[in-house]
């Protein structure tokens, strides 16, 4: 990676990102919340699509078409939630989730990542999280660090992911279980310190989030803490 020699202006337009919920809403609650903000035609489409995705129909390609077209049917802001609901309704398992991720647009991949905590118990979907963390798409990086990533990422990979957030400007507030995993993590503290020193040597500012994470590493781990 090379750094740019000159400062780059901020993007001309940007809108606040919808917060990534750390504890994903149960599907019924998510559906109610989504239905309340959708116009009637989009709500009707969603009802039909969810009925078609119910496990009896999950083998049919129809619901996968619904998964693809959720953006134009419900609008880009609602599409994430609509896709997560479709995955729940279909009872998508690790194989289906992997297929949808690999054949998905960035928006579809984000929805798969968001659905993982409720749909996959073990670490079978960890490779999807690792794939997302290799991208430079901040939407995917943030989604990869949701509750599923927090539960299953090994310590080394998790630390690098947190550092990547600081590099790419993903707010660390979107990292699930940040305080819990950072607590007492001396290696993460060292990496943050080195990063701050590198920025200082280059005459650059240090992202404020770095000091927040550094402070979290200084608290002692709870006795039952893993990693």
């Amino acid at each position, binding site marked *: 990676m090379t750094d740019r020699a000159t400062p780059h*202006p901020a993007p001309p337009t940007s809108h606040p990102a919808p917060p990534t919920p750390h504890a994903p809403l149960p599907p019924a609650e998510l559906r109610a919340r989504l239905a309340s903000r959708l116009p009637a035609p989009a709500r009707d489409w969603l009802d039909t699509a969810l009925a078609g995705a119910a496990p009896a129909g999950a083998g049919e390609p129809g619901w996968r078409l619904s998964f693809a077209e959720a953006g134009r049917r419900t609008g880009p802001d609602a599409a994430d939630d609509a896709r997560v609901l479709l995955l729940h309704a279909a009872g998508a398992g690790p194989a289906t989730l992997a297929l949808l991720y690999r054949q998905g647009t*960035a928006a579809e991949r984000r929805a798969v990542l968001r659905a993982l905590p409720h749909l996959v118990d073990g670490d079978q979907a960890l490779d999807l999280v690792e794939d997302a963390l290799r991208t430079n798409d*901040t939407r995917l*990086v943030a989604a990869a660090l949701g509750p599923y990533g927090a539960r299953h990422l090994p310590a080394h990979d998790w630390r690098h992911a947190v550092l990547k957030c600081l*590099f790419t*400007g993903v707010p660390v507030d979107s990292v699930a279980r940040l305080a819990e995993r950072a607590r007492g993590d001396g290696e993460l503290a060292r990496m943050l310190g080195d990063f701050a020193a590198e920025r200082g040597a280059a005459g650059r500012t240090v992202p404020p989030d770095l000091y927040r994470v550094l402070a979290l590493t200084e608290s002692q781990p709870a006795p039952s803490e893993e990693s």
Partner: protein
Amino acid sequence: MRIFDPHIHMTSRTTDDYEAMRAAGVLAVVEPAFWLGQPRTSPATFYDYFDSLLGWEPFRAAQYGIAHHCTIALNPKEANDPRCLPVLEELPRYLVKDGVVAVGEIGYDSMTPAEDHALAAQLELAADHGLPALVHTPHRDKLTGLRRTLDVVRESALPVDRVLIDHLNENTVKEAKDSGAWLGFSVYPDTKMDEDRMVAVLRAHGPERVLVNSAADWGRSDPLKTRKVADAMLAAGFGEDDVDLVLWRNPVAFYGLSGRLDLTPAEAAATHEGNSILRGGE
């Protein structure tokens, strides 16, 4: 001034281009899938390319406040390589995606039987998926290529008013206009059209159903040609409404036929403070 570049290969351009385009008024682009300069030898490389047009490239564009959509197809040049033909079988799973607003670029390169097949098959795919089609006309033997293209379109299930015929010039504009198709013009530094010729064509044939693009790619080209045409139109006495029709409303109307055009910079939302393009630089 609001500008929609309906044909530009941003994959080959830098972030400096995005920045300059946004400053010039470009708020939306469509990136047609095409040849990359180096011939591909296996279908899998197409899928990575298509995924990029539906993932990384819209993300890059959104960071500069530009809405990015794409068209997906097996281009005519590579349709001549049997190793690439399996791509045709995989197109349906791409043509249902939200960011895909047309099938394209399709059309003729050398006018071979393999190109006949790929063109006809992909016009059917467009009809099946409720999408319009972006059809380019060949660089060589252009008028013959246009006539053969229009024949294939008329034989297809896709109505000609859902087809954009691109890379037109003074010699091909009249027949294309008479067919009822949408009319695309690529403005280049050396070849294809230039700004003044474009203004003359607009004077002669009117701004209705005309789209102007930069078709900027990895070759000698200029991503700001859309703005330069707008300026040339104003200097030649066209009104701002004419400029808006050609540089915004016509492309919105054509790609809007897909029902998938989303011009709210919603994708920019996710970038918020995210500047991963900056690679840690500040």
